[in-house]
Structures are given as structure tokens and as C-alpha cells.
């Protein structure tokens, strides 16, 4: 009997030794510091006649109550969690009207940046990069009415929005088809087609510019860098006289600086404009300009920015006096509507990047 007791004890001891705990785990070695990666965002409100806008990047307010034709003073640096390859969108950018509506999808007061044709595509921001976001177009831009009708299943026909040159109105493809004659239709221009399956709710949308700073020559004492953007929605290529001309005219004397000649609405030429829905992104170079005679503030030349639709036969807009400092970088955005009056009149935003 003792033997049995001993054997039992041995068996039990073996069993106890078999009771290992979980062993598929190691101690974690977490990184305890947050990410160091940031990107820089500068926001411009180029929505004529709209509300002032609050801007958000990754849910953080980066610009508060930016009025129409105004920009934010300098970049806001926002922490990124930038993924690697595979185009994993991660940075959300949003504009929210402080009052009234601006269309959009989150709510009538919101517009979001969309990297693709639908609302699920976010922006990919690279570490340390600089971006300028311009809220463009009008709060009255109609949502394209789909000729892609699930009832008629005319999947070949895509959506389109047309711009009526004479009035600045934008009409749907159905309205365009209903125009009385080809002559009338010739007075319009297609903003672009909306592919079946895309979403476009109309209203304000975003233009994204990736800011690549120019290199100033060594020993520069007279130059600044200026980029011009035509954000006037009805300044299309036809007829030519509705394009935009821009120049800096010295207040006192001297040569004009031609900024733009026959410039088209940037959204119509921006890369990624096709398909026409959602946000656009492009790069527009900064051009070095001699805007000062020396490095002192007093040596900066005083200019008026002038905008015209007819090569300065008539001046549509003249800005207050502006000056450009040496080595500084600026974006000038033409806003408003050709033919617009009041708060829809042609105007401009001038922002300094550095």
C-alpha cells in the first residue's frame, strides 16, 4: 500500500510540474514617447460671400474664424501619425462655417477634404511637409444632379456640372440638356464630369497645395517668392476675356510685376481635377520676385495688387498697399466672382508663409 501512496505522490508531483503558466508572451518593450512627426498646415478662406471658417486638422482647430479672402497667419504645426506606403489615408482636414451653411457632407456647416471620390478617403500628409489648404468654390455650388440614375441605370452617362458664363450660375447636366438650343449650350462650360459612383454634395470644397519652398540665390537682398492662385470659380477658359490677369503695381513708380496672365480657375487645371468631385490637389511653384531694394523694412517697395479680366483695360480689384519682405514667401489668392458685387465681388487674399 505504501508503494501505491508513493506512486500516487510521484504522479501528482509530475502533474503539478506540468502546470506551466502561459508562455506565449514576453515583456513588452513599448516606446514611451509620442511621435515626433508633424506637418504644417496653412488655411485660406477663398469662398466669396461665405461665412468665416474654422479649420480643423486631425480634429484640432488650426484656424479660427478666418474671414473670406483672408488666410491664416502662418502655418499651424500638427502632430502626424504618418503611415508608410500603401496610401493609407490618415489626416483629416475640415472646414466649419462659424455661421450659415457651406454645403458639405458632415453637416450643412462642414466641408471635408477628400483624397478620392468618396468621403472615406483621407489625406496622406508627409512628415515635416507644408500644405496650404484653400477653401474654394461657392456655397451655392449645386450638387451635381446625377444622370447616373439607378432607376434608368444609364451607367454610361456621368454627372456633369455646367457653368453659365454670362451669369456665373452653375447648372446640372439635366438643366444643361434642357437649354433651348445648342447656341445656349455653347455659352456654358463643363466644370467636369462626375463619374458614376462618386459623391459630390456641392458647396465648398478644398484645394490642397503642397508647398515646396524655392531656393533663394546666395546673397539675396532683394527677392521674395510669390505664388498666384486664381480661385475665382467662374473664370474659365472660354471666352478668353473671363480669365484673370494679376499684377503688382508699385504705388510710387517702377515696373509692374506680372503675376498672372490669362490664368484659369485653379481647380479646373489642378492635378487630380478629373474626376471633378471632391477636393483637388496640385503644386504651384513660387516665383522669385524682386520686391525690395534692400533688407530693411523701409527698403520694401509698396504695391497695389491689381486684378483684371481683360488684361487691365478695366481693373476689377485693387488691393490696399502691400509690401513683400526679402526672403519671405507669399501666396496671393484671387477670390470672388467675375461679375460679382458686394461680398461676391472679386477680391484677393495675401498670406505670408514664413
Amino acid at each position, binding site marked *: 500500500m505504501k508503494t501505491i501512496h508513493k506512486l500516487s505522490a510521484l504522479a501528482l508531483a509530475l502533474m503539478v510540474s506540468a502546470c506551466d503558466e502561459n508562455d506565449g508572451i514576453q515583456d*513588452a518593450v513599448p516606446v514611451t514617447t509620442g511621435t515626433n512627426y508633424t506637418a504644417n498646415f496653412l488655411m485660406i478662406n477663398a469662398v466669396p460671400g461665405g461665412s468665416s471658417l474654422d479649420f480643423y486638422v*486631425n480634429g484640432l482647430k488650426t484656424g479660427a474664424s478666418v474671414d473670406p479672402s483672408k488666410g491664416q497667419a502662418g502655418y499651424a504645426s500638427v502632430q502626424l501619425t504618418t503611415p508608410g506606403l500603401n496610401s493609407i*489615408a*490618415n489626416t483629416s482636414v475640415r472646414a466649419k462655417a462659424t455661421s450659415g451653411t457651406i454645403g458639405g457632407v458632415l453637416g450643412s456647416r462642414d466641408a471635408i477634404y477628400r483624397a478620392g*471620390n468618396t468621403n472615406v478617403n483621407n489625406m496622406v500628409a508627409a512628415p515635416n511637409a507644408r500644405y496650404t489648404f484653400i477653401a474654394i468654390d461657392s456655397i451655392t455650388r449645386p450638387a451635381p444632379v446625377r444622370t447616373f440614375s439607378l*432607376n434608368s441605370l444609364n*451607367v454610361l452617362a456621368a454627372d456633369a456640372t455646367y457653368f453659365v458664363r454670362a451669369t456665373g450660375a452653375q447648372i446640372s447636366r439635366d438643366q444643361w440638356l434642357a437649354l433651348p438650343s445648342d447656341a445656349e449650350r455653347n455659352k456654358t462650360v463643363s466644370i467636369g464630369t462626375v463619374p458614376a459612383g462618386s459623391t459630390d454634395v456641392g458647396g465648398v470644397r478644398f484645394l490642397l497645395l503642397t508647398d515646396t519652398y524655392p531656393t533663394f540665390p546666395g546673397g539675396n537682398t532683394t527677392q521674395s517668392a510669390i505664388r498666384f492662385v486664381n480661385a475665382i470659380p467662374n473664370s474659365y477658359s472660354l471666352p478668353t476675356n473671363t480669365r484673370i490677369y494679376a499684377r503688382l503695381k508699385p504705388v510710387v513708380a517702377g515696373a509692374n510685376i506680372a503675376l498672372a496672365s490669362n490664368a484659369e480657375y485653379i481647380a479646373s487645371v489642378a492635378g487630380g481635377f478629373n474626376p471633378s468631385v471632391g477636393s483637388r490637389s496640385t503644386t504651384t511653384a513660387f516665383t522669385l520676385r524682386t520686391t525690395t531694394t534692400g533688407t530693411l523694412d523701409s527698403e520694401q517697395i509698396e504695391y497695389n495688387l491689381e486684378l483684371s479680366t481683360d488684361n487691365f483695360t478695366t481693373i476689377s480689384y485693387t488691393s490696399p498697399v502691400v509690401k513683400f519682405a526679402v526672403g519671405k514667401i507669399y501666396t496671393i489668392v484671387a477670390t470672388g466672382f467675375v461679375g460679382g458685387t458686394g461680398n461676391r465681388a472679386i477680391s484677393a487674399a495675401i498670406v505670408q508663409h514664413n
Partner: protein
Amino acid sequence: MRKILLFLLLAAAPMAVWAQGVTSASMSGKVTDQSKSEIPGANITATHIPSGTQYGNASRVDGFYNIQGMRVGGPYRIKASFVGYREQVIENVYLQLGQNLVLDFALVDEATQLQEIVITDNRDPVLNSDKIGASSNFVSSQIQRLPSIGRDFRDFSSLTPQAGGNFSFGGRSNLYNNLTIDGATQNNVFGLSPIPAGQSNTTPFSLDAIQEVTIQLSPYDLRQGNFTGAGVSAVTRSGTNDLSGSVYYFFRNEGLAGKKIDGATTPIPSFDFKNYGFRLGGPIIKNKLFFFVNAEFEKRADPAYTFAVRPAGSTTQAANQTQATDDNDPLTGLAGLRKFLIDNYNYDPGVYKDFTRAIESQRYVARFDYNINQNHKLTVRGNITNAFQDVPPSSSGGFVGGPPGGRGNTNNVLSFSSSYYRINNNQKSITAELNSSFGNGLFTNNLVVGYSAFRDFRQDAGGINTPSFPTVDILGPNGQMLTSFGPDPFTPNNKLDQDVIQINDFFSAYLKNHTFTVGTANELYSFNNVFTQVVNGVYRYNSLADFYGDATPSQTANFRPAQYTIQYVGVPGGAAATAAKWSALQLGFFAQDEYTGIKNVKLTAGVRVDVPTYLTDLPQNRYVNSLNLNGEQLRVGGWPQVRPLYSPRVGFNWDVKGDRSTQLRGGTGVLTGRIPFVWLSNAVSNNGLFFGQFNSTNVPFDVTGDGFPYNYSQTPYTASSEFYSNLAAGTPQLITNPLDVNYGRPAVTAGINAVAKDFRFPQVWRTNMAVDQKLPGGIVGTFEWIFTKDINAVVMRDANLRPAVATLQGDGRPLYGASGANRAIIANDRRLSGDITQALVLDNTDKGYQWSATVQLSKNFNQNFQVTAAYTYTDSREVNPQSGSTAGGVFSSQANVLGPNNSGQSYAATLVPHRVVAYGTYRKEYLKHFATTIGFTYIGSTGNNFSYTYNGDVNSDGTAGNDLIYVPRTKEEILLTTTNANDNRSIDQIWQQLDAFINQDPYLSKRRGKYAERNAAFAPWVNRLNLSLLQDFYFDVKGKRQTLQLSANLENALNLFDSGAGLIKNAARPQLLNFVGYEQPHTAGSLAQPVANAGPASTIGFPWAATTGRPIYTFNTNADGSALSNSYVNNTGVTGRWQLQFGVRYIF
């Protein structure tokens, strides 16, 4: 644990004994005279009164007698007589399944003036010498009286204290059980379900056909084998001399189910359940030949979905609605999608509202019992089961990760009815059993011969043939699945034929204190399995708009699918040629002795040897077998070596005081079981010869613009015959199909399954110790301890996985190479051979154990009033979850930190730590014509366990969703980002939501700064109280009782009284965080170089070496934009509510 061990050390006394066969009962004992001298030649007869069946034997020289092979049930009249002595008669003896009734007779000589001795048996089900291991038994009266709304024998087996959920026992997988009916194996040995017809959510036998059910967890009787979980044995009813039977009808529907969940009215889609049938038993020749037949029909129409489509025009999503809408919305509208498919592709994806799942079965049983003579009894039983069920589509991706959120209905997903499939389970089975007695009872023989044919196959829901159309998964605006249409990816061609032949023979000899038994138990299996997963291809689109864009003839590259996956047939002859046709044999032999030579002690000891043998030669893949995978050569097409597996076992039962007031029992021994044969069958078909795999993000829906979706399998595959023969000859195949070039298919790749050469079937070493004690008030208390150590547990490993190349920035876990397809980049490829996606090898580990401790109290007030209650604590650990229905499923379900080949031991997926079981019945007859019976079952248990993992493949091991999360302590320890452009939370807000979630989670809040463990999070406690009420009205016709019985079965009674009680809570989001990519720039040194010629980006990895920056995650909101703030959600399905079932039955 330590206290228990101490107790056992003290209690480990002489080892002793056993249980009986699995189809019958027996009795034994000793005949003496008043002076305790043995009486040889005394006549012992036992008469089964209802059938007049006689059993008998004479006592041997030593006074001992044995009667074997007796019918279960009773009553029996047992007589002992000898010339010159008074006859002793014992009435009303009932025998339970597997029982060996010990009856000693002390005969009194006729000269002694005594009246005839009549003893009425009042045997205790616990305190008897044939109870050794842990077991539970349910007799026909309990089966009739306890509640069982599904009329399913598993409702009774789950009352075993050591049971877990879903037919699992002792913390082991339910696929490791052995189910026998009338002694013949009735398992679905292929293992796609623990029981036959289980896939159809029904049972192979009507409760009305079942006499008794026994669950053995630790049998030391070596006749019992082929399981390492539990042996579940049932015997069917027999006919008697009385013609008797019953006709019955049961029903329930949504009107008889709870409308509210936790106080909130939650509509329940309509459903309907009907179960009806009859049983009839009687004599063909009185006292000689009997019949029993049963036919039962079950029809259910269950809700196909819990969350209904959101009505057109609704601006908000109600709690029981999906994000999908009943309109033409370009991002969520299912109405528009359906019309689009019909008009453009002539394909009707089915409906998405007002549809139900059909579940139907027909069960027939016929049994004949033939008393050839007193020494030979023959039983023949046949049964037919035809069952099917319409099933929601699988959420699995097959050999890639499944779609986020799955395809089954949730508040996100509503799949079209075309993606539901029908599983058909048809079975025919016949069993014959011959019980014989020879040599005046000195020898007995039990012969069982059985044949079962299982025919399982799939169709589309509704029983229509599966169309040749791809599966299309479309994500909704919140990044989770929106809908799916097209066939379930695992359904096309899916069929399984199984044939099982069984021959068992047990021969016993009775010699003084010894009962020697030798026997053989043999099973021949034959399989024909066609499983062509993902053969029609699976598209995944990030939005409905993307799908429209891509499926429109004018599509552009802007709208390509986020993923396209296909496994195409690479062998001439199409799908049929990929069948896994094979046969195997499991031979078992044993010898054992039962010894009763020690006073008050029974001992059994014996050894069994099982020999799994494989009968089919398989095609060899010489090319793959020639590869050197880190020193290992695969054996594709090779079986494991045939080796005998030995199972020695000893057991004891010690009646400590000799009066059956205290009983110690237990034993130790080895159990040998089977694995689900599907894991072997996968190695037959996934040999790299039959299938090739292809993933791309660049395949348009309609490649050729012909109005048909792209289907690689339909594309003429000019190289197919070469593909097969070249690989078989050892030459890698070069692909020449231009489509491969057009859509960036890099090279032929195949998933390989193989079996290790020295793989062995599961074996466990199981020990149990128990004490049964008669307590005051007639209560019987039991303490039972069971310990199981895995000897050969099953693991699945990927032999093609290169060791980790780095550690993951962020939490330090091993990081694997990328999945670049070009073998030139070998240094950065996680695969050892670029021709193989995964090479899964079935292998063994000795890791894993289970133990349980049970305290049980039971009281039989009288035959009409019994109550039992038990508490069990269980611990169970394993390396691989053992319940996958494919080898790949077993592999991918092992959530891990250290990599899938090193996932280690953790909590078992089937673990239920705390469990309380109580049940009882009470019956009262009154006013001469009435009887009322009430019954209850209560099961209270810890909720299901699960693992917190990442959605995505963080460690780049090639399997998505299997990486356990690191639980961050601070915001700085995790990189979070927004989910999509609609997500307007700031990073700080996302962290605050995640932090709050972790804080409220009972498991995660304790794991801060650590990894989550596998299966370590448990859902809240579940209380389940079921009640039954039977109201009988009876009257006599010609002396025979006729009964009309009305019944009500109330499932989840607590929920009826309080809609906040009896709830089942499920994990809200086990894949808590979505992995979206690694931070830039790459930081991990030399391996982090862009790889030249890496090929297209694969959806299962990255074309760059994965040794990159820290991983970035999203913590998604709920579908309505609110924060995920609670770990658990209520099960709003029918099982989460109270249900009432009515029945009417006529018994004669």
C-alpha cells in the same frame, strides 16, 4: 490548487475500478449461504418485465455470477434460487446505461422459518461500486421531464458539471468527443461539427428515440476509446410486450419570445419552429422479438438577420438597424445595388429584407430486439437523418484575412440572401449488436458491427445550385463591411462523403475475483471531400461607390477593388479533380482485468493500443518536397508513420466503511483520441498541385467588358495540365497566361498543408479522484477532481515562415519579413520559398493541460422528486485552439505575440472557468386523472472568452487579426489616427476614448503596459434558467393508461420576468484596433530598404521590408459615430431572449 493536491495525497489510497459497456447494463455478485459459504450452481434470473426478456446464469464454483448485455431500464425482477434454499426475489430493479449492478445473495435454507424475502432495489446513482470516473447519466424520465426547447440531447449533456458551452467537456474542444449510439460511432469524424447533422443545427436522433444518455469524462474501462474530451453514449429505446407509443407536436414562434432587451424594445424578426413525430414500440413475437420505430420532423424558419435594413430616407440609424439603407444611396443603398446587378450583370443577388433561414430535418429510427434465447440477444438498429440549414456567409477570408466586420449580420453588415448557403447533412446508419453468453455464464461476448454513410453538401440558400459568380464584399462609410453578395466563398463545389465501418468485439471471462476482458475496436473511414475555397474569387471594395465605379463599363483605374483574391483549380478536370479521396483505419485492441479480491474495493487495470493506419497513396509534390525550408523538408502527400499508441489505465472504487456511506474512487490513465480528419484531409487536397492562389488590387470587376465578372477559374487556363504534371515531376511552373501579366500576378503560389512524419493522434494522461459522501438529510455529496495533461496535442505551424527579422518598433514583438513575391528579395521575404504562401504542418506538442474541481450535491426525495446542483472550477490551457474546421483555421485562430510558430500556451478557447449547474424534476399525480410535472435546469457560467487583437497584420506574419494587442498606459505609447475623412475626432480625443474603454474593461484595465493574452478576456456571467411544465390528463382504456399531455417549455425564464436578466453579452469588438500602417520614415536600419523588383503591393503585406517605424492604429467609433465605450453588447438574437414552446402529446 495546493489544497486540492494535499487532499489528494491523503486520499490516494488503493487504486481500483470501472464502468460498463456502452449499450447495455450488467449485474454480478456472489451467492452464499447463511454461513457465508459460497453456493455454486445457484440460479440467478433477471426478467425485464416489459419485454419478458430473460437473462440468467448459474453461480460458479466460487459462488460468483455475472449477467451481461442486459437491456437498459426496467423494471426487472431478479430471482436467486437453489435447491434446498428459499428463493429470493428482488423487484423493481432499474438498470442504467453502463451500470454493473452488484447484488449479493445470502440464501436461507428452507428449514429456516422465514417468509419469502422481497427486496426492492433503491440503488443510489452515485454511491455504487461501478462508479469510478467522472460521469453523468440521464435516464428517460429525466429526458422527458427536464426542459429542452430544442429537443436536443445536448441540453442534457450540458448539465454535466464539467461541461463547457457548445458540447465541450472538461475544457477541451468539442471535436475531441466521441459520440456513440447503441455502441456504434456516430461522430462526424471529419470534424466539421461535433455531432452528425450539427452543421444543420439539429441532432441525428429524436429525444423520443433515446432511452438514456451517459457522459464519461474519465472512463477506465478500456472498451471506451477514441476520445480525449468526453465519451457520450446514448442508447435508443426498445419495444416491449406492450404496444405503446406517442404522437407529439411542439411549436414556438416570435410571438412567444421576448420583445425587449434590457428594457429597450428590440424588434425580433419573425421565426417559426415546429417539431412533430411519433414513436411506436411493441412485440412482433411476444417475449421474443420486438420493434421500435420513431419518425420526427423538424421545420424551423429562423430570422436571417437581427439588424434590419435602414428604411429609405431615415436620417439616423436605429439600434437594431444596419448602416445599409433600403434605397439608392450611392454609399449605402442596397435597393440600388440590387437593381444595378440585375440590369447590368443579369445577376440577382437575392433579397436583403424579410427573409428567413430554413432549418429542416427528418429523423427516422427503427430498432429490432431479438431474444434468440437466454444466452444470445441480437439488436439491429437503423436510422436515417436528412437535415439542412441555411447559414449566413462565413466571415473568413480563406487564405487571406477576412473582410473587416465580417459578412454576418451586425449593425454594420447586411449581406444579400445569395451569400447565405445551405448545408445539407444526410446520414444513413445501421448497427447490429449481438450479446452472447457461453459456458454457463463463464464467458460473454459482445459484438457490434456498424456502418454509417454521411453525405454532406452545400448549395446556395434555398437549395439552389451555386452560381459561378464571385463573392463581392463592400465596405460602408465607417470602414466596416456594409454588404456582401455572390456565393459564400467556401460554398462552390463543397461536398463531403464519409463512410464509416465499425467492428467491435469484446470477450469477457469471469474467474473468481477476476473479470478478464479482451477486445478489439476497429473503425474504417473513407472520405471524399471537395473543398474549393475562394474558387470563384472574392472582391473587396472600400465603398459602394468604388464598386459602381469599377463595375461600370466605363470604369477607370480609380475604382479598382481594395483586394481581389482567388484560389483557382490548377489541375485538369476542374473542381471534381481536386477531391480529397482517401481512407484510413483505426485499429484498437485491449485487455483488462477487473479485480474484486480486496474487501470493499474494486480495481480495474488494463492497456489498450490504438493503431491509426492510412490506406491511400497520395499524389506527391516533388518540387515542394525538394525545397529546403530552414532545414526542414516537407512531406506533401505523405502520411504520418504508423505507430501504435498505448493507453494504460487503472481505476478503483473503495467503499471506505463497507456501508456505501463514503466512497473513494478514481484512477489514472491515458486516453487516445482522433483528430478531426478534416485537418488530415486538408493535407490531401492542399498539396500545391490542385490549387494556385492569386491576390491583386488591380483586377477590374469586369475584366473583358463582356458583362460578366472576372472569374479566373473560367478563364481558359492553357497551362493547367502542365501545372499539375510539372509540379508533380519536381519542376516549378512558369505561368504563361497573359492575364497574369496584365494584372500583376507575380508567380504561381500555393498554400501547402502537410503532416509531420512523427505526428501522433491526440493522447492525454487523465487522472481523477473523487469522494462521494452520504450527508444528513439523504443528500449525496461529491467532490471530484480531474486532471488532464496533454501528451500529444495538435499544433499547426507554418514551415515556410522565415524567423523574425526584427522587432516591431512600438512594443518590441518579433517582426517578420515582407511578403514581396520576388524570390530575389529573399532577405526581406517572410517566406522561405516564394512559391508557397503558407506551408502548414500538422504537428504535436506536449504543452497543454486541463483540470477541474467539482462539488456536487444531489437528493432523490423519491422517484418523483429529484434535485442536483453542482459547482465546477475549470482551468484549461492549450497552444492551438483545437476547433478549426480547416487546418488554416486552426493556424490563424492562434492569437499570439511571439509569432504564429511560437504562440505558446494560453487559455483554451473552450475554457469556462466557473460554472454552476442545477436541475430537478417534481411530478405529482392527483384526482385519479391528473398529473403535473415541473422541471428546471439552471446553468450559470462565465461568459465566452476571447482575445483582444489588432485588425490587420501588425507583425507581418501573413495572417491578419491574430496579433494580440499591447495595452498602452499612456497616449505616448500608441500612435493613433483618424479612421477616415468623416472622422472629426482629434488624436487626443481618440486616445481619450481608447483610454476610457481600457479603463472600463475588466481585463484590459489590468493589462496596462503588457500584451493581452490569448483567450484571457471573459464576457460577463450568464444566467440561464429553463423551466418545463407538463400537464397530464390520463384515463384507462382496457386497463391501459392513455395520456394526453400538454407541455410548456420556457427557455431563459429570468428574461421573461426581467428583460435585463438572462442576457447573453458578447464582446463588442475583439479586434479592438485597426492597424493602418507603419510610421515613416523607416527606422529599423539596413533591412528597411526599398526593395527593387518587389512586385505589386500585396494586400497581405508590404513590398518594403516591414522593419519600419511604429505601427499606427485607428480606434473606430460605433457606426453612429459615438465612442465605443462598453466592452460588451447584448446578444439581441433569439437566444438572448426568453422563448416559450408549447407542445401537445398523446401517449398510449
